[in-house]
Structures are given as C-alpha cells and as structure tokens.
C-alpha cells in the first residue's frame, strides 16, 4: 500500500519524499481535528455524568 502510493507520486526523489511527508501530515491533521473529536465522546473514559 505504502509502496504503491510512493511509486505513484510524481517527480524526483526529493519531491516524492516531500509529498509523502505532506500526505502523512494531512492524514494526521484530519485525524486530530476531525475524526478523533467525533470518536472521543463514545469512549468510556469520557463518561463522567450520572443518569445515562
């Protein structure tokens, strides 16, 4: 999977590495700011109130 992505990135090695890092950064940002905040409230360690 990772090999496939890397092979399909355009440009010389320097550009490819840069693009790969950029992809990783985008994925991490998406997880931290969009996916995880949605998932967080479902985690048992966040249940602090009574009556539910």
């Amino acid at each position, binding site marked *: 999977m990772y090999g496939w992505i890397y092979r399909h990135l355009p440009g010389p090695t320097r550009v490819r590495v840069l693009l790969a890092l950029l992809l990783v950064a985008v994925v991490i940002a998406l997880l931290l700011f969009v996916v995880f905040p949605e998932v967080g409230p479902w985690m*048992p360690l966040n249940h*602090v109130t009574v*009556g539910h």
Partner: protein
Amino acid sequence: MRAAGELLITAGLFVALFLVYQLWITDLFQARSQSRLHDRLAASWQTPSAKPPAKPSEPPPALRPDPAVGQGFAVLHIPRLGNDYAPVVVEGVGEPQLEEGPGHYPGTAMPGEIGNFVVSGHRTTYGKPFNRLDELRPGDPIVVEVADRYYVYRMTRSEVVAPNRLDVTDPVPERPGAIAEAAMMTMTTCHPKFSAKSRLIVFANLDKTVMKTPGGAVPFASGEA
C-alpha cells in the same frame, strides 16, 4: 500478506495516535477553551452590575447567575489540588461543554443557593479537571468563586456509585423528593480512571460565604485548613 501487514501496522498507529490525542492533545484544546473562558468571565465580572450596598456592613444580596449553555459563570478552587487549580465552571453537561471545563447540571442549584449545586468533570481527558477528586478528605474546603464573593463548601464524604444513580443530583442528594434546607454541592466524575464502570461522587456542604475585597486572595489559597 504484505498488504495485510501494512494494514495492521496502520491500524496500530491509528490507535496509538488516538491515545496520544485523548490523553494529552485534548488537554491542549481544553487549556485554550479555559483561557478564553477566564478572559470572558473576568470581563463580565468587571462590569459593575450591582449598586453599592446601602449599609456597607451588609453584603449585597447575591446575584443569581443565569448562564446560557456553554457559558462560564464560576471558578472552582480546591486548595488540596494546588493554588493554581482554578477551572472555570460552564453551564451544561453535554460533551461540548465538558470538553471546555467542569459542567454544571442545568436545573440544579446555583453556587450558594439552597439545594444541590452539581458539577461534572473529566477525569483523564480534556484537561483532567477532576482527575484527583479522590484525594479530597472530609473537611477539605471547596471554594466556588462568583462575581462578588466566594462560597466555601466543605467536603463531607465521597462515594462510588453505578452510572445510573441520578439521585445523587437531587436537591438533597440520594433522597428523592426531599425538600432541601441547606446549600450543598455534588461533584461527579468517572471511576475508576479510564473506565465508565462507575462514578466517583464527592459531596460537600456550604460552610460560609466570603465577600471579595480589592486585592484579596482566594480563601485558603495559602493552604491553611
């Protein structure tokens, strides 16, 4: 086979990153929310809303805060947890509110009021405001700061209960239907840490009210009992 391995490694990284997010990064988010809440609260408290008392010896009647959901309206001080412990309490106990700070159960008493002032807070995530609630001992002061005064509650007891025990939020905790005659406070958080199995409940009774003075410190800030 190789693809499956990569997938598993990716899944592992996902989980690890999620843990880092929950345990530490949510603290950063809450710190930002808290600093905004502190600024807003300080600004709203500076606006003179009450006229000076007719008789200086008599404290003016308490203004009942009427916060909208998500709005900060009081600052919690627990000397046992350190002098820099001062989270802003927000109105509401929905997840968006609890992510910003300890939340007040809408409909329960306000600080200092006869009845039960109920506050819930996160134990291990989002700034962990109630992480060390289990360290409180009977008699410990719990100071609730509002615009012009401090309400000093004293911890009476703690209890670990099932998550469905809504009766701890009753006007007289654990006595459904009873008419409240005293000002009480109840704090809830999850228990044990990192679990949703039970809830840790800390009860307190109002001991006294201390008016704010210019330049005055929070009661018990120096650590005296």
